[in-house]
């Protein structure tokens, strides 16, 4: 739930999603759901020559289970806030 809420706050920001198959896609975060599936707008592939498949794709839906990383701009991340929130979340689980 924590990261679902976190990503909901990040809607509208520019992010780079790196998938488990090494494909990296840059785009504007349009929406996220409980499975952390991601919808991106204005997408462009980071290494366009290696992945010509997606030249004309502008919007896409990415299944949450295939995401390796979601790369965020550092100025948008409040590390202290995240640390506290994850600590609280961990306490609730146990």
């Amino acid at each position: 739930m924590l990261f679902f809420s976190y990503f909901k706050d990040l809607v509208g920001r520019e992010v780079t999603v790196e998938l488990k198959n090494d494909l990296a896609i840059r785009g504007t975060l349009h929406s996220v759901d409980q499975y952390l599936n991601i919808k991106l707008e204005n997408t462009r592939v980071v290494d366009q020559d290696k992945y010509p498949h997606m030249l004309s794709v502008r919007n896409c839906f990415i299944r949450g289970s295939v995401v390796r990383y979601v790369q965020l701009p550092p100025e948008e991340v409040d590390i202290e806030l995240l640390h506290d929130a994850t600590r609280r979340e961990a306490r609730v689980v146990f």
Partner: protein
Amino acid sequence: MSWAGPDDIFLSTSLATYLDTNVILEGACERVIVGDLYCDIPLGLYVIRGENVVLIGELDLEKEELPSRMNPVSEAEIKRAQKAEREATDLKGSMRKRMEFLDFD
């Protein structure tokens, strides 16, 4: 349009519905890309189990689907190109194994 992950199969279609990311594709075709060659192989009606879906992308019809450097070829030719590529990577793998004793970094 969708690109299912594990075997790098690339499917293209005009109609799709999804629930928990299970997908039904009508008029699907598999686009095989090897280097600068590609081939669209028609598949018909496809039902894809959600766990195999990596990404579903919306094609912008005004944009070029593929870079202009790419050439369409027949199915037989792309299969030959795939085989050649597979053999090249297998050879690279076996050569690397043979060189392992040399302890390069």
